[in-house]
């Protein structure tokens, strides 16, 4: 029988959390570590975060996002982490089976431990319920970032950005670099929600006005965005009458929050904290399902990638330890194979130290009838470990063999056992 490959650790997603988990799993002694990534390359969202500011906490170095990712991609590959790219995970089970689709079809993978590292998603227009028409030209900021930085096309010429988070401010600068005009950044809160340094180097440097306690009251335009109506809000987020201002523009970017992406986690039975939107975890980043761990923004949304990496290390280490324990447990068990004239035998496996406690009964059925005295034998290669006689053997009648405690030594040194039923 062909034994299907079982991975020590399968990591779902190759962003900073997934890469760190895979690296640390390897370093902690996991043997086969696989990353499954739906994109055509490793790295995740860092690849479109071309700005610098990454790595200050972890390396004391100021790196662009893709460089930070490259460091971990190189390390993972050097350590022998295996990858399936362009491969989408469809389902994860509580028994840690991972079902994937790729260009050449469907595949079932098995793991001793799984690390969920799917990251997060952007909050969308329907989720914040902006009134107005539904023209083209409304994008999430991160999506626009992918268009501009990876695919090389501009989603518009005159922008309004809703949300003063880091992605929104960084996109304001990026679009300015590429020749667009950013008319306004609106923030519903009475304070900046991103980092001060981004306010300075992304907005102040390019005279892009920021308005706090303002939001989009309505989107205007039929086929394409023609303007947005900005409106001031009071402390209950209610529009202040008379504060409306029409800002002509052709594109509205939304940078209004990130939500941990846990569709797969839920399918695996992982319990989700309604406050964070991510799994409940222990200090090893293990979820409520034993052997399923979670790393990075899938758990809760971090401010800095360096902290995502550290969370990945914790999850990867926990996953490796779990896998090694699983392996030890399996190593203590012997397969019991079907030999001559045996159709099947129960149990399939025998713990090496089972006979310490008691005799063990094996139950089997034969393939062909023998109408004379037979010998029912448990053997290790050619060495007989236990033997019992019977007057005959018939497929219709179950045959049993009791393995006595005195066979302990023989069982303990065996690597495989098999049973056979034959004429004496």
């Amino acid at each position, binding site marked *: 029988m062909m034994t299907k490959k079982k991975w020590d650790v399968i990591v779902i997603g190759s962003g900073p959390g997934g890469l760190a988990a895979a690296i640390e799993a390897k370093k902690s002694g996991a043997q086969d570590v696989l990353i499954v990534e739906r994109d*055509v*390359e490793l*790295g995740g969202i860092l*690849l479109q975060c*071309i*700005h*610098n*500011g990454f790595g*200050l906490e972890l390396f004391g170095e*100021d790196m*662009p*996002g*893709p*460089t930070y*990712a*490259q460091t971990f991609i190189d390390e993972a590959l050097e350590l022998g982490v295996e990858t399936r790219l362009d491969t989408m995970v469809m389902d994860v089970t509580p028994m840690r089976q991972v079902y994937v689709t790729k260009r050449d079809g469907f595949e079932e993978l098995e793991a001793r431990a799984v690390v969920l590292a799917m990251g997060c998603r952007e909050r969308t227009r329907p989720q914040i319920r902006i009134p107005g028409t539904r023209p083209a030209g409304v994008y999430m900021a991160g999506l626009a970032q992918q268009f501009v*930085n*990876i*695919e*090389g096309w501009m989603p518009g010429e005159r922008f309004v950005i809703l949300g003063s988070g880091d992605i929104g401010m960084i996109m304001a600068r990026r679009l300015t*670099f590429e020749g667009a005009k950013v008319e306004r950044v609106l923030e519903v809160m009475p304070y900046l929600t991103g*980092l*001060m*340094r981004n*306010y*300075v*180097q992304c907005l102040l*440097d390019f005279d892009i006005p920021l308005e706090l306690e303002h939001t989009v009251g309505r989107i205007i335009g039929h086929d394409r965005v023609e303007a947005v109506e900005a409106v001031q809000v009071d402390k209950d987020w209610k529009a202040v009458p008379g504060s409306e201002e029409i800002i002509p523009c052709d594109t509205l970017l939304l940078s209004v929050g990130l939500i941990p992406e846990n569709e797969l986690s839920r399918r695996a039975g992982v319990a989700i904290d309604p406050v964070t939107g991510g799994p409940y975890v222990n200090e090893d980043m293990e979820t409520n399902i034993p052997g399923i761990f979670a790393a990075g923004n899938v758990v809760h949304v971090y*401010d*800095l990638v360096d902290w995502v990496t550290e969370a990945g290390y914790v999850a990867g280490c926990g996953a490796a330890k779990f896998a090694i324990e699983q392996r030890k447990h399996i190593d203590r068990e012997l397969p019991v194979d079907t030999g001559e004239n045996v159709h099947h035998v129960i149990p399939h496996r025998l713990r090496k130290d089972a006979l310490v406690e008691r005799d063990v009964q094996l139950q089997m059925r034969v393939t062909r009838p023998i109408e004379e005295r037979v010998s029912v034998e448990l053997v290790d290669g050619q060495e007989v470990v236990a033997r019992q006689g019977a007057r005959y053997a018939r497929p219709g009648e179950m045959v049993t063999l009791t393995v006595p405690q005195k066979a302990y030594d023989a069982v303990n040194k065996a690597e495989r056992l098999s049973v056979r039923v034959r004429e004496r």
Partner: protein
Amino acid sequence: MAKETTELICITCPMGCTLDVTHEGDTIVDIEGNTCKRGEDYAKEELTNPQRMVTTTVRVAGGLHPLMPVYTSAPIPKARIFDLLADIRKVEIQAPIRVGDVVLEDVVDTDVDVLASRDMPAT
């Protein structure tokens, strides 16, 4: 020359300290609000010749993606950012490229280079 106080926000790290810089022209008399030495260096430079790291993209031929993310090896004068972007826009590089490869040398009259931010495999 009269003393004046300029408020700056330090961008050296994510903390973003607010610096109250008292100065006579370009000469700094006192800095308050910084929590490390880097704040002082930042204030001096920001008052006289503000510098910024620049990150952008360069067109790539024959690569996995049509664009290569790039960054300046050191900060350049803030006033020259758009000159640099105009120069970069004229360039097209050929894949494959390794992270750290020099894409443009000695840009906008500085000894700063523009470097590739990642590997770009050829297709």
